[in-house]
């Protein structure tokens, strides 16, 4: 079985009547799809990953990329993907890697939830004319306030609130490490969140010195490899996040290949150059919930109880019970990462088959915490496949306090979701450490794109809230009465605690 026996994924064509032989396609393609041969550009379509860098850079619109021009003989069970994975593994004997999030065509629950709006009996509120509040505080809240009225009528507050993270908008950018993505990508996103008054995660890659100017808007991560962690790192972050798992690959650790570990990444992660950075599947000091509690406690002590500590888990079947365990520790927020969450590289079998949708996870966690009367003990941050402001609004209505985006922010900077992140050759300068490629991403330009995206979503959320007659995000949170299920089965609607359309 030779490799040539597998049909190509993409067919690239150059229209010779439009091509002016400028060779921009050759310069821009890191995968070696193009080469000059005399007076023509020769195309090796087999190298193409459909990242569209050449299409974007071609000044004459001469390039066409066709998907699956030669398909396999169709079969309902032995799909193209199934067969290719077998060829791949028959050849290599290894785990098949994949990038980005879950790529199976399972239906999205978000798409089957519809939002409400006011008509007649209550007026909608116009955000152009009335205040609309999206400010969100993440962290522990007291169950009740102790208030004493003094003899002179003055009111004395006897409850001290623990430090909360103040977000101008309930949208943050999730943890994508330096190493997995480029410094320029991190700089762009960091500048965006600091302009917007929200936060982004460092990932398990340490905090590069050039990001310190944005540290007040950065959440530092402590993951199972402990890469980049020291007291200086912890103290610089606005909050600390312990990563237990991630939605793209629940139950396993991360893996940064040595070729991405250049001098800068090496120093920031505090690991030798060119060494593989392999995070263990579990934290080696956490083998039960009380061990997690101790780690939360240690981080709180190390930072003198001044910083909120989050715990990130993948949305797995038992997510609600796990979250309730986390709520009983000193942790301030639980981050739930749904099965559509992205990654630079994950075993395909995990990415596509392990974990549950974020919608069900939010509903289950919020419900369990309320049933136990401890919802105030912890904030819920949801992530994993948030594509637009409607997804965000629905996630909050299901019970999330705030959300993380990941892939959406990358797309704002040019990512075309080709899913080839794990090769380290990202032509958009995002998922790569190659200086020639990373310089393609200009933080002075891309930060604005990221900020524009989040700002646009914020405006849309304000409009959706106003239409629903709500002028404060607190009144959207957990307001499942303003959602209806469309073509969802009864069991699913019970889990989500939403009524069907028309009810």
């Amino acid at each position: 079985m030779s490799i040539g026996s597998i049909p190509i994924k993409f067919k690239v064509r150059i229209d010779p009547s439009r091509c002016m032989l400028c060779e921009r396609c050759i310069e821009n393609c890191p995968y070696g799809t193009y080469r000059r041969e005399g007076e023509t550009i020769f195309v090796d379509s087999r190298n193409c990953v459909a990242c569209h860098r050449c299409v974007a850079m071609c000044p004459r619109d001469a390039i066409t990329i066709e998907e699956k021009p030669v398909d396999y003989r169709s079969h309902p069970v032995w799909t193209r993907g199934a067969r290719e994975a077998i060829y791949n593994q028959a050849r290599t004997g290894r785990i098949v890697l994949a990038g980005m999030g879950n790529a199976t065509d399972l239906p999205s629950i978000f798409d089957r939830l519809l939002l409400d709006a006011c008509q007649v009996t209550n007026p909608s509120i116009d955000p152009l004319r009335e205040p609309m509040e999206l400010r969100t505080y993440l962290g522990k809240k007291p169950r009740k306030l102790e208030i004493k009225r003094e003899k002179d009528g003055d009111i004395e507050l006897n409850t001290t609130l623990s430090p909360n993270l103040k977000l101008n908008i309930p949208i943050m950018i999730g943890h994508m490490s330096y190493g997995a993505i480029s410094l320029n990508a991190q700089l762009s996103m960091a500048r965006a969140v600091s302009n917007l008054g929200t936060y982004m995660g460092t990932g398990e890659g340490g905090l590069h010195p050039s990001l310190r100017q944005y540290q007040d808007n950065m959440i530092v991560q402590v993951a199972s490899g402990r890469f980049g962690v020291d007291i200086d790192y912890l103290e610089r972050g606005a909050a600390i996040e312990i990563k237990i798992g991630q939605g793209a690959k629940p139950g396993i650790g991360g893996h940064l290949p040595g070729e991405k570990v250049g001098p800068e990444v090496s120093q920031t992660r505090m690991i030798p150059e060119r060494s593989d950075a392999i995070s263990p599947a579990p934290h080696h000091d956490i083998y039960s919930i009380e061990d997690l509690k101790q780690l939360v406690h240690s981080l709180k002590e190390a930072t003198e109880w001044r910083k909120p500590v989050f715990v990130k888990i993948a949305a797995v079947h038992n997510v609600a019970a796990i979250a309730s365990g986390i709520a009983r520790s000193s942790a301030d927020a639980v981050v739930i990462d749904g099965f559509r969450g992205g990654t630079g590289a994950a075993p395909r079998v995990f990415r596509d088959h392990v974990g549950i949708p974020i919608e069900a996870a939010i509903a289950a966690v919020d419900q369990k915490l309320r049933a136990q009367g401890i919802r105030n003990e912890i904030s819920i941050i949801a992530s994993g496949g948030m594509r637009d402001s409607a997804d965000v609004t629905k996630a909050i209505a299901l019970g999330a306090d705030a959300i993380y985006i990941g892939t959406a922010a990358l797309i704002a900077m040019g990512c075309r979701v080709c899913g080839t992140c794990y090769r380290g050759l990202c032509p958009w300068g995002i998922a790569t450490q190659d200086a020639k490629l990373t310089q393609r991403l200009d933080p002075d330009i891309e930060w604005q794109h990221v900020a524009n995206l989040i700002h646009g979503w914020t405006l849309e959320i304000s409009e959706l809230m106003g239409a629903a007659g709500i002028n404060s995000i607190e009144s959207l949170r957990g307001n499942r009465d303003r959602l209806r299920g469309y073509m969802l089965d009864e069991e699913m609607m019970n889990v989500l605690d939403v009524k069907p359309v028309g009810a």
Partner: protein
Amino acid sequence: MCGIISVIDRSKSGMDGSRIKHALSLMNERGSGEGAGYAAYGVYPDFSEYYALHVFFNNLVEPKGSVDEILRTWGEIEFEEEIPTVEQPDLRRTHIPWRYFFKPDISLMPGSTTPEEDIVTMLVMKINTTIQGALVFSSGKNIGVFKASGWPETVADFYQIDQYEGYIWLAHNRYPTNTSGWWGGAHPFNLLDWSVVHNGEITSYGTNRRYIESYGYRCTMFTDTEVVAYLCDLLGRKHGLPEELMVRAFAPPFWDEIDRMKEADCTLNSAIRLTYGSALMNGPFAIVVATADGIVGFTDRIKLRPLIAAEAGDRLYISSEEAAIRRMEPNLDRVWMPKAGEPVIGRVRV
């Protein structure tokens, strides 16, 4: 729409229900003839130590048997009777209004600091959720709610509210949207000491309901107003917030205002919003809440429903319309429009 009016006499002098009936029926443009009701404080002086449980029975066989049983299990029934009514041509009698004067046995709820209230609250929730054909709609001491489906004057005449004397009256003229004009859906809503009348719609109901239900309350009346009564009970009674701070939690200042406050105020208001964010009520509303100690009127944060207040001597009036207040008392000392979210508080003199 809906029209509301309430009055308190701070010296606790009694007022019979005849005037408030006229005031409420003046606002018939705000109603649809499908629901009206009155709450009066101080109406059962002879039974002031007992919880007056007003119950709608569908019949006096199974549901009443079950209610009798559960009440006897948890305490003692001092006296019970059908609430006296007079048939009205345009009021269809779909329930039998009954009243019990009940004393809970506090030894049955050890470990509670407020066993009487907790038993009564528990019984109200239990009867309303588990006993078919019985609905407790009033459960305070020395308090009576009188409501039904009909125009204000019809309901008033049905219950003969001019025969009752109270120092606080709350009244409501309903234009139903959320639920059909069933008797249980008419206002005022009451739990223990708390009574609520409400004009508007609470768009945050889902959030408020999820919040209050995590404290053991059960919303059973299919309407957003009941949640206000439970929130008052939680914040006012169980958490001990003074009225003005309770209202602050329900209709808090905007963050822009809080940010501009002096440090102590800023801390207090931030703490209220952080702690009680899920109790924040959104949507258009004007609400009057009463307890035995007084009344509080307030609107939503951008005042999407009308509310006007007036004073005459010892009496404070809060209503949807000034005309209705003047129907009760033509000579007013002061009339004013409260700002959005700003509470109007009338307390009895101690």
